[in-house]
């Protein structure tokens, strides 16, 4: 725990709040042996193809955090135009729009919002985005199928 003893106050405070007042449909808890590594769970938002799914993610706070953005990745397989096979997420605030005034909580809320509103015009998974634009109904059906198949907790 020597490394954790030097944990910045900001991370300690954020962690405390995440645990004491979790955002609806989101849970994040630090790993025991590395307090910069979080196990995250996001519930598929209602009225989205991901409804009823439980999505596991990993979140890591790099050394430069909060000046640099946290690194977040889906561990659960998901059919989404902005999330690729490896679970990497295309989200502006994780890249150039990151600001130190943002937090873990805001990041996870943004990811949850991304599940509600896929953006096939700014795709990461080209093939899924193509499907989404050509035949949205079919894409949504596939996403639901994947939710049922891979995201049952």
């Amino acid at each position, binding site marked *: 725990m020597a490394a954790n003893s030097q944990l*910045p*106050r*900001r991370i300690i*405070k*954020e962690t405390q709040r995440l645990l004491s007042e979790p955002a609806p449909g989101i849970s994040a808890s630090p790993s025991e042996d590395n307090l910069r590594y979080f196990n995250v769970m996001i519930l598929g938002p209602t009225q989205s193809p991901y409804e009823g799914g439980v999505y596991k993610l990993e979140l890591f706070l790099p050394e*430069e955090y*909060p*000046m*640099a953005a946290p690194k977040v990745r889906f561990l659960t397989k998901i059919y989404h135009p902005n999330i690729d096979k490896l679970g990497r997420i295309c989200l502006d*605030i994780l890249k150039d*729009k990151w*600001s*130190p*005034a*943002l937090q873990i909580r805001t990041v996870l809320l943004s990811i949850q919002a991304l599940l509600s509103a896929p953006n096939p015009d700014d795709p990461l998974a080209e093939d899924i985005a193509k499907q989404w634009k050509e035949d949205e109904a079919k894409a949504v059906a596939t996403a639901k199928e994947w939710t049922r198949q891979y995201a049952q907790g």
Partner: protein
Amino acid sequence: MQRLTRSSARQREEETRPSLPSTNQNSSKRRKQSTENTVTATGNDQVSSDKVAKRTPEEPSNPTTAGTKPSASNSSQQPEQVQNQESDVEISEIPESDVSYFGYCSDDGGEVQSNSKVATETSCMDEQARRRQQQEDTEEVAELLGVENSVATLLLRSVAWNKEDLLSRYMEDAEKVCAAAGVANPAAVSLAMLSAQVSDRECSICRLDGPLAFSALSCGHSYCDCCWKRFLSLKVEEGETRIVCPEPSCSLQVPENIVRQLCDRETFEKYSAYVENAFVDESKTCVWCPYPNCGLSVGTTDSSSKFIICAQRHSFCVECRSEAHAPAQCDQVIEWLKKCDDDSETFNWLSANTQDCPKCQSTIEKNGGCNHMTCRKCKHEFCWVCLGLWQSHTDYYSCNRFDPDKVKASEDGKAKSRAALDRYLHYYHRYMNHERSRKLEEQIRDKAVLKMEELQKKEPQRLWGDVQFVGEATEKLCKCRVVLKWTYVFAHALEDSSSQKNLFCFLQEDLERNTERLSELLESEVENLLKAEVKSEVLALAAVATQSRLKLLQGVEEGLVA
């Protein structure tokens, strides 16, 4: 026209005084700028060389010869210089009232003027001058709008450094301009950094409690100085030059002086360098030299031509960013280069550096830029390009022309595509050939210098200046080569057998002949080159070739053939 002639004569006068490279007393601001800023006035070089060309005694048909002879005798006290390029001096010695006497000259002046538009590269604002201009613009805007320099910089950057545009827009709608630039309105308060010791407040970034020193831009989003410093340093490290307030909903930009105030010196210097580079990227008045590892920026505003030259003497086209490619047009160049890329396999075969002697079939490698080949084995003399007999070549030089009849003769089912390929290869072969020749010829000067060193050891009375003309002539030769190279791209785009093309080919032929003559002469041994009669021949030929080059470029520019 007369005015032009006079002023250009005056201009030439200045340029020929070596001790006074830049006199700043010129009335026009633009002129002042260019004398101050230009590193090497290539455009003016052209003017003088052209002038020499027009007045070369070796061109008996030239109407100027008679007209300019008296002026030449005016300066007979400098016979050496008359031979040399300094002959411009005489022109400026003619009283201005005599301008009408230069009936031809004023045309000439006009020709040079128009040539400098398209044909010749203009050297422009260099790095230092650019910085100075940047500084001046910033200070002017700061003064006019009553803001700090660093705010003026932000405002200018938001409109790609177009000062006039900024000022007129600011007068119209200051609020809009400020919002677009990420500057608080009124801009004067942008810098109001609120700094205070707040003991009982927590910084929303590091979440540390006071006592901490807080700072904020005029938007009031306040963070501790330590967080500011880390934030700015990281942004600078990332190469960001438009740093905005950390608050996600805020679009206020951090001005330069805040970076200076809050970061260490090293970071600030890095930031300044990035901002300076951003000036070139954003400004429409200058561009980066596209040559590999050059990294110099060149101003484009004082150029009348799209071909400009950087301080390292790389000349390039502002529009398509390739080598200066007169007389070919940008779209022709782009298409051509793409085609060359696509058909690279064919070219690999084509550009093999050897050819067989047409007589004894020995494999021959070209070891100089000149097309006059002599087989070492059988002494057969032939043209490298068409492999025809050299003897029959000099007078009826038609190897620059593509003869469509020849191709038509080979009638078969695939004649058309075959003809297209043949046609293309015809031009490509000649295009590459001139490129290779130029590369070889660029070494002539170095060789001459080396040789001079040797000679000096043996004969210490030799002077460096004796070999100077070789370098100058080589430079002219290379310029002709570049133009020749691109003439083939231009010709490739012209319709075969059209009158335009015939005219163009005529000009091309003229240039090619003179260039080859010059090339051949310059390739002789240095001892030979140092002979007075050879030297004067070199100078004359260089002038004639330059004249041919300008004639061709002018022809294209005036649309005679385009």
